[in-house]
């Protein structure tokens, strides 16, 4: 099995969330990471590729 599309999450202990931001903003972080993951599924890749998330607090 190959993981061709990799979305860089927040940090290793909490890849799709960020406990250091306020709870109401934290939902936005999670949404941004999830949306980016869905988006890159539609993008062509030649091999394993890392995608970043363009959202404050997501990284």
């Amino acid at each position, binding site marked *: 099995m190959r993981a061709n599309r990799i979305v*860089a999450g*927040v*940090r*290793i*202990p909490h890849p799709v969330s960020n406990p250091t931001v306020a709870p109401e903003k934290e939902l936005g972080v999670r949404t941004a990471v999830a949306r980016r993951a869905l988006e890159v599924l539609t993008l062509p890749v030649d091999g394993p590729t890392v995608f970043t998330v363009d959202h404050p607090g997501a*990284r």
Partner: protein
Amino acid sequence: MGVRGPRLEQRTFHVRDVAFGSTFGVERGRLELDRDALAAAVLADDRVARCEVQLVVPGEDARIVHICDTVEPRWRVGGGTFPGWISPIRTAGDGVTHRLAGVGVTVCCELPWRATGGIQTPRENIAEMRGALAQLNPLASLQNIVLEIALRDGLSDEECDRAVHVAELRAAEHLAREATRERAPDEVQIFELGPAEPSLPRVVYVCQITSQGPYAGTFYYGGYLDRLMPTIVHPNEVLDGALVDGNVAGPWIRTPTIVHQNNPIISGLYRDHGRDLAFAGMVLLRGHYYGMDDKYRVAQEASKLVRWLSADGAIFTWENAGNGIMECLYTLQECERAGVRSVFLTWEHGGANGDDTPLQFYVPEADAIVSTGSIDEPVTLPPVARVVGGETVRLNPQLGGERVPAKGPIDLSWRLELYGGAGHVGETRYGRIDV
């Protein structure tokens, strides 16, 4: 006129036999120790509720469990032993230190499992004293003075973590001081980085440790190194007790304190200094940060320090597991790009059959790798006649934990519980032993 660098005079007393007696002393390789006086030194810390002193010798049909750490007995003449713990904080590595070679003081304690969880859960640290697996731990070749201790109830995780190390360090200092104070050593070794021919290649030792809070920490002069920015240390500091290992959460993948005190990379570079190379210094960094930004940051910083030491070559060792390999290899990558030829020491995965991926991460610049062995092959620890440290062992904390008799047999699906086995700095015979 340059400033004189550190000069460490190590006075070695070789020990080949150890026995309880009415006093302390070392005579022709025989160490005598007063069991009650040693326990009393440990019990002077009111966090320690119980302390029993046991002896375990090489080849004995025995197993040591609940190990928290092992230290070589040392005493600095004039005071200052184990700074930051039992002496004021002052840079180690300059002066005169007595050591009892061939002896390890090991502290054993069943640390509490609390809510900390995850990578900070104390795991079972087991040392085999006979059989093939004995070659993988630092104790099987030593005369072992084992402190079986219990801590008072109600201590925080950090207090528990500190108390076990204070216990071993107090005992180690007491033993070395009382046994050797008025005696002449068998051997004297000077550790001083004198001038070397400018034509010799300059080699830096890049030593990566891990430190992630109680039960998963490394201490530098008594303090956790969790937020360490990469720094230059003198190798004498490490030889003289500046680093204390507290990584009970990673038995296989830790560097016990006695290994830091006798780091073979440091002694090897000293041996070759002025002959084949110039030992240009040592860079200490922490790995296993939680985000990519921190990994890149420490790699930039550490590689910058290597270049400032005017290195032609570098030797890299790392500690712990998982993504901790990344800081070390990113640093190596930056060094290679700057023209510093680099060698990497590491243990491997490889799966139970040795045919799976060996490393979790890799950079193409790492083209000179020394393997210290694999962790993944399952092993069964055989029944033994005697266990020291506890009657049961606790396995699989991630699954809620299960207790099995320490006398064995004990099935380990992989080798994580085997104390000090991965041999990150090449101190054990091999990481991989067929049994």
